[in-house]
């Protein structure tokens, strides 16, 4: 069974955006890096990467729209910080549904093996 949901009218969007944002290796690497470290500027994120500043910026915008990353102002430049909330939410939901399936299938097993 599904669990009680609590809906909010704000922030409408779709999980599709989050899944799509993560469906790219460069963006996954950016997320993995930002999730471990401090908020970083585009220059810092471009360093050591084979991608151009423009390309990194484009990927960051995709992540920003999916709310996985947000930009924070630090003096004259923007820094990008990781926001775990959308991923935590989706993960929590999938874990919950997954757990319900485990329980239901255990009941099915005892029914057919009876």
């Amino acid at each position, binding site marked *: 069974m599904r669990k*009680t949901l*609590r809906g909010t009218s704000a922030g409408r969007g779709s999980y599709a955006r989050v899944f799509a944002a993560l469906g790219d290796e460069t963006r996954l690497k950016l997320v993995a890096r930002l999730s471990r470290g401090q908020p970083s500027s585009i220059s810092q994120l471009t360093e050591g990467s084979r991608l151009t500043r423009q390309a990194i910026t484009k990927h960051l915008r995709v992540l920003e729209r999916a709310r996985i990353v947000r930009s924070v102002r630090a003096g004259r430049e923007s820094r990008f910080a990781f926001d775990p909330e959308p991923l935590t939410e989706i993960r929590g939901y999938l874990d919950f549904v997954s757990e319900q399936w485990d329980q239901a*299938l255990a009941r099915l097993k005892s029914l057919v093996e009876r």
Partner: protein
Amino acid sequence: MSDRIEKRIELRAPLSRVWRALTDYREFGEWFRVKLDGPFVPGKVSRGQITYPGYEHVKWEAVVQKMDRERLFSFTWPHPKSLGKADDPADYSKEPSTLVEFRLEKTAKGTLLTVTESGFDKLPADRRLEAFRRNEGGWEEQVKNIEAYLAKNS
């Protein structure tokens, strides 16, 4: 991170027995915990009432997709915005749904059942489960998933 859930379970029962437990509406209701109004018919809405303790007010309204005897049974299932008593949706057919598929394969010991539920990417992001809030370790696990994904795909 995948937008689907997949479960595989080996059952010590023949295909015919598992097929019956999945597609006979009374047997399905017993393990799934739903009281269904009538048999499953492909293309038709299956209606009933959840019997899971605490959620007896929730309606079951799925659309049966495929019934390929002893091979595949599937239906689409709405994920209403809320399962709270107060905001039970009047029309479940307007709620976004996921696709549930049961695949059966004969094995030496009985039947291998694979269940997939897909389409979570279509659910609106404002569907926040209380379970999310309790999932303290969620993010750590997510980082591991990302690392595993990178290790596998790079």
